[in-house]
């Protein structure tokens, strides 16, 4: 058993997922079988995948294989190296939690048949794993496109609602535009040799012009999938439309495939690194991060809020990658490794906490039927499990120690602090702004997360029916608990994670930080040296726990020690109700004021004579009006013009071919001369 190569293990798991999907067709309407057997089986597959990939990561072997699939003389070239193994670990770990959750989440009779969901879900997982293994453009594109297609069908699981169909279409459209750019990027990378294997692309030495073209195409193509500005518009539409496990999988895992693709192209396939690439990526990332977090802060729909928060996190990842490119282009490999470690760390952290948060929204949605923050509230009393697990996700997401988000953001800020070493005075002046905006993003992310948690779980229920809300089921608890454990684990054992990331950065930029980081003991992270900066998550953990314990004991000993429910903020009102508490809109209002130029606001203010005054404000994206609508209008205009060719008369059509024939015949003699 042990001498089987890891890549075979991975292929077996992919095969098992595909088989589970096909079994789903057989058991199309057998809900219990699909939900209670197939999904947990798929989850176990995820665990095995994670284990196998982690072993490959530690052993540091590069394995490759050819599968004679697809077209003749065009086999699938597969390759498992440290980078793909790292992402496979993330797929495996995250999919375990999500699949288990899905086992308890999907309900019979909602939209797509359970068997079909099983098919799409497992094919989605399999194609993501295949994207990571692909070692030629052909198999990469096949896997990439099947990933887009399966996720499209998952998004439109409730396809009877026109809004969901529209969201799915938007997603599919942008995914395909991105795929075209990726295909063109591979076309540039193969440098006219006609050989589309990645091995050949690595061997090419492109001129700086063509390398830049490939880089920009890659940014565009993968950026469309990741949701970088201004290609982000599908994210806030698709995530609320999809069932929660699917949003979790898409946001937590699929977006990371785009990050993987960019890392693969920028650091593995391209040898040339030009400094302005890093600047482009950094700038894009920062703008996206700020944009995403500001929009997250003003959303009133819980899944939209999380979708914008995903955009923000993708922005941070881009910024980290841009910084790594920048360091790399000046030959500062150790610092590039630091930035890249921050990026990969955040990839893992975000995969887990964002999946966790999306899953909690799923539980809330099932328990209450509400997705609008304005109608939720006080759920911590009815759904304590979900609330506490969501709290862990929220803390990790806002980057508080000792959770996973803190480590990655701290590493990222550390790497920013080293930028004064760059030999470019111009950059040295601008980078502090970037650092400041990272800090701003982190702070605003905390703000958005407080809103998410506070409005849903704290305070008074805003609707009558909320008191009937029930806690999550067994499977859902296991799934969310698993992701919560991972989020905590990533936070308290950073050096172990950095050790796992080390082979990846060594493969990509030829250096790693693991040795330095754990030089002062495994409990203390010191990315460069102990004199500069260090972080001991356990100190924080124990500190926080000790503070809580002391407070608890003090209250017990010296205060009356009873649990007392009293009316908070009575404010002199003779009566009070749940509508008096701060709302999602109210909470986001300061942000809306400060960042007003970001938004397209539609306010509806009540008139003095209204008997039933109503106040509403709708925030929408300026990019929609500014970029997408003009494109859509131009397309319609041109199509209308072209449509005039179609007269509906056969004689006219025949005349077209006749004139074409005559023109071609006229051209024949001139062409020969």
């Amino acid at each position, binding site marked *: 058993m042990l001498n089987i190569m890891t890549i075979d293990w991975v292929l077996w798991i992919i095969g098992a997922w595909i088989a589970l999907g096909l079994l789903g067709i057989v058991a199309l309407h057998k809900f219990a079988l699909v939900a209670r057997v197939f999904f947990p089986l798929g989850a176990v597959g995820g665990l095995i995948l994670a284990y196998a990939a982690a072993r490959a990561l530690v052993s540091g072997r590069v394995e490759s294989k050819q599968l004679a699939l697809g077209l003749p003389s065009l086999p699938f070239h597969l390759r498992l190296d440290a980078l793909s193994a790292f992402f496979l670990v993330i797929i495996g770990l995250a999919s375990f939690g999500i699949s288990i959750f899905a086992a308890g989440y999907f309900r019979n009779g909602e939209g797509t048949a359970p068997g079909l969901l099983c098919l799409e879900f497992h094919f989605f997982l399999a194609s993501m794993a295949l994207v990571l293994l692909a070692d030629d453009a052909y198999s990469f594109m096949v896997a990439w496109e099947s990933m887009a297609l399966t996720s499209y069908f998952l998004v439109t699981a409730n396809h009877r609602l026109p809004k969901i169909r529209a969201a799915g279409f938007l997603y599919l459209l942008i995914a395909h535009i991105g795929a075209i750019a990726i295909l063109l990027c591979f076309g540039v990378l193969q440098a006219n040799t006609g050989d589309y294997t990645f091995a050949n692309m690595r061997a090419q030495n492109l001129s700086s012009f063509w390398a830049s073209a490939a880089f920009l195409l890659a940014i565009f193509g993968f950026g469309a999938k990741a949701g970088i500005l201004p290609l982000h518009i599908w994210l806030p539409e698709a995530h609320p439309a999809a069932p929660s496990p699917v949003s979790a999988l898409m946001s937590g895992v699929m977006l990371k495939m785009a990050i993987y693709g960019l890392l693969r192209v920028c650091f593995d396939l391209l040898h040339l690194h030009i400094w302005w690439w890093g600047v482009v990526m950094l700038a894009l990332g920062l703008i996206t991060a700020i944009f995403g977090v500001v929009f997250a802060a003003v959303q009133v729909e819980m899944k939209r809020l999380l979708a914008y928060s995903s955009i923000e996190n993708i922005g941070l990842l881009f910024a980290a990658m841009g910084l790594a490119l920048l360091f790399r282009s000046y030959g500062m490999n150790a610092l590039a490794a630091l930035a890249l470690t921050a990026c990969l760390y955040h990839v893992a952290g975000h995969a887990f906490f964002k999946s966790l948060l999306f899953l909690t929204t799923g539980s809330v949605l099932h328990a209450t039927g509400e997705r609008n923050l304005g109608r939720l509230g006080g759920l911590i009393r009815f759904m304590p499990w979900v609330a506490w697990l969501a709290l862990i996700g929220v803390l990790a997401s806002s980057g508080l120690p000792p959770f996973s988000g803190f480590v990655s953001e701290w590493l990222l800020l550390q790497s920013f602090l080293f930028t004064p070493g760059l030999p470019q005075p111009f950059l040295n002046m601008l980078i502090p702004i970037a650092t400041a905006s990272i800090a701003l993003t982190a702070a605003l992310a905390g703000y958005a997360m407080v809103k998410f948690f506070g409005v849903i779980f704290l305070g008074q229920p805003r609707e009558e029916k909320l008191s009937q809300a029930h806690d999550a089921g067994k499977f859902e608890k296991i799934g969310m608990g698993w992701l919560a454990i991972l989020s905590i684990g990533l936070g308290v054992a950073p050096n172990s994670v950095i050790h796992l990331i080390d082979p990846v950065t060594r493969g990509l930029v030829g250096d790693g930080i693991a040795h330095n980081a754990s030089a002062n003991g495994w409990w203390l992270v010191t990315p460069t040296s102990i004199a500069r900066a260090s972080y001991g998550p356990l100190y924080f953990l124990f500190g926080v726990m000790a503070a809580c314990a002391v407070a608890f004991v003090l209250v017990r000993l010296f205060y009356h020690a009873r649990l007392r429910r009293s009316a908070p903020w009575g404010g002199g009102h003779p009566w009070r109700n749940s509508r008096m508490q701060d709302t999602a809109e109210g909470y986001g209002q300061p942000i809306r004021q400060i960042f007003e130029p970001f938004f397209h606001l539609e306010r509806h203010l009540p008139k003095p004579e209204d008997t039933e005054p109503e106040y509403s404000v709708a925030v929408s994206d300026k990019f929609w009006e500014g970029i997408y609508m003009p494109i859509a209008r131009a397309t319609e205009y041109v199509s209308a013009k072209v449509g005039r060719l*179609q*007269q*509906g*008369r*056969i*004689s006219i059509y*025949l*005349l077209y071919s*006749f004139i074409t*024939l*005559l023109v071609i*015949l*006229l051209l*024949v*003699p001139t062409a*020969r001369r």
Partner: protein
Amino acid sequence: MTELSIQLVNLFASFLLMLAFAMLAQRRVLTLINLYSLQGLTVVAATTVVAHMTHQEHLYYSAVLTLILKVFLIPWILHRLVKRLNVRWDVETLINIPSTMLVGIVLVVFAFNLALPISRLSSSVVPGTLGIALACVLLSFMMMIMRTKALPQVIGFLAMENALFFAATSATYGMPMVVELGIALDVLVGVFILGVFLFQIREQFESLDISHLENLKED
């Protein structure tokens, strides 16, 4: 002998051109079909002469095939169609016939000019016929454009195929047998399909006037 054959092929070619003009000018459907079968016969004769002159066995076969298909079978099918659909009446053209003829003459001049440099390069024994064949293709095409009823359009399509066949035999001594068989079969199947369509069109619109098809356009 060869001289005579060349003269004969040229004669048949000019026949073909005249027939193309006659079809362009013809208003009656039944006469159109007869003209079509006459055109087929001319092509058969020309093919036989070329086959005799160049001693190519397979050209005889294609001549026989053409004779069966284009002189007897397809005209017979067309006659039956006319009878079944009851469309004996005169057909209207989009442009009046004299103007059509004038445009046709322009087309012939164009085709001859076009074919001149090509026939100089050609190794064929009868270089002049290529221009005529090309002119016939264009004229038949024009006939398809000018007619408003479906049946004459079908005949225009068939006449165009005839002219193409003639171009192939006279300019390059015919195509390989397989290709010819394939085309012959295509034409036959095409006629069947078009016949079915004609019935369907009439079923739908109670007329064979294709201007009704404009209603199918999506707005």
